[in-house]
């Protein structure tokens, strides 16, 4: 867990943190889907939209679990990373216009693993019984997501013959 990661002092804090993690993941996958749309990589648009939808379901589920409590507003106050990013945020800097569904799923797997690690550590440090209970549920959920990524990676293997060594459509550089 990064030094600036928020701490869950209560159950509502944990709801807010979990909500923000999923909301950030939705934002990143949506941005990546939009990028791939603009760069005419339709296979990747589908993968990133599906990932955004899946994270959105999880985000909404957390809201429902929190009942009447305004998780989004509380997240604005307590679920802040001031230096790093929340753990499930895909790395936009690693995107490439020729990336394959396999690359995208590797990116998603890394994000799910960071989230799993985050909740595991949170569970390990939690003292409040309710926080522990929810953290354990979140660990279970993220474990499922990691397993799902592994299964999807089998369905979307790397391109036969590996990635082309060079860019087959190199930037029309004047350089």
């Amino acid at each position, binding site marked *: 867990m990064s030094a600036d990661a928020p701490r869950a002092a209560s159950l509502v804090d944990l709801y807010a943190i979990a909500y923000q993690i999923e909301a950030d993941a939705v934002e990143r996958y949506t941005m990546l889907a939009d*990028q791939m749309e*603009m760069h005419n990589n339709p296979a990747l648009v589908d993968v990133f939209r599906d990932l955004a939808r899946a994270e959105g379901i999880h985000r909404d589920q957390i809201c429902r679990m929190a009942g009447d409590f305004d998780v989004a507003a509380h997240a*604005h106050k307590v679920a802040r990373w001031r*230096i790093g990013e929340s753990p499930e945020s895909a790395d936009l800097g690693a995107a490439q216009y020729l990336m394959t569904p396999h690359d995208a799923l590797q990116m998603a797997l890394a994000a799910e693993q960071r989230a799993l690690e985050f909740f595991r550590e949170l569970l390990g440090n939690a003292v409040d019984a309710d926080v522990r209970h929810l953290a354990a549920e979140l660990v279970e959920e993220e474990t499922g997501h990691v397993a799902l990524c592994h299964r999807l990676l089998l369905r979307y293997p790397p391109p036969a013959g590996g990635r082309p060594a060079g860019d087959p459509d190199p*930037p029309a*550089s*004047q350089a």
Partner: protein
Amino acid sequence: MSATLAPACRPADYRSAVKPIWCPGCGDYHVLMAFTRAFAELGVRPEQVAVVSGIGCSSRIPAYMNCYGFHGVHGRSLAVAAGLKIVRPDLTVVVASGDGDGYSIGGNHFLHACRRNVDLTYVVMDNHIYGMTKGQPSPTTEPDFDTALAPGGTGVRPFHPLVIALASGANFVARAFSGNPAETAGILVEAVRHPGFSFVEVLSPCVTYRPDQRAWKDRVHRAPVDATDDAARAARRVMTDDGFNLGVLYRGNRPPYAPPAGKAITDLAELEREFEL
């Protein structure tokens, strides 16, 4: 611009519906995120913000934002922004530029904007290249960066924007890295709040013409010392650092530019008479 928004704006409220056309992996996506987060944190509503830019990939930012925007002439964004801030001091004015836009064609404006110290924030997305026009060297390109346009490199020593800003009178100087949008947003918040001309250099990789810059994420580090209010000391520090020190480096205390007191001429005919020879 949206007519009705919730009282407290969220970062997404500052995004327009236009989808960016930057290359996937470009650092400018993160800078856009940092802008929206900073405005949400500052609590300024979209109609209280103006983002002014010049020309370049980096200068496309106003199109992607829901606030007042001006996509201006190459290198002239600071002149437009200074005029806007002087006549509309109520607006939060942020200028977005690139190393070509801001240091080549706009280099002279940069010097005088620092000197004038109008209360605005200048963000230069530095990728040490002209991205939009396909990879020509800029004033911050390394001398040995080899391209067909500059075989063997330009051989010319790069410009040192932070030192120039300090020597010219900028009142706040910071360096950020696009790959850390949360930290960049925090620096932007401070830059906007600091009175006078705030200069923020954001190292923002061009993954297409400078794929080597993908490695910047492993090179950046926090500045080992706190910001100073001594411009000479700050200049010495940035001249001897490795170019990857991040954080607020200088907070000055010069009063921002204030237009001379007296009656402002708002009538065009009267203004024309003033200039009659």
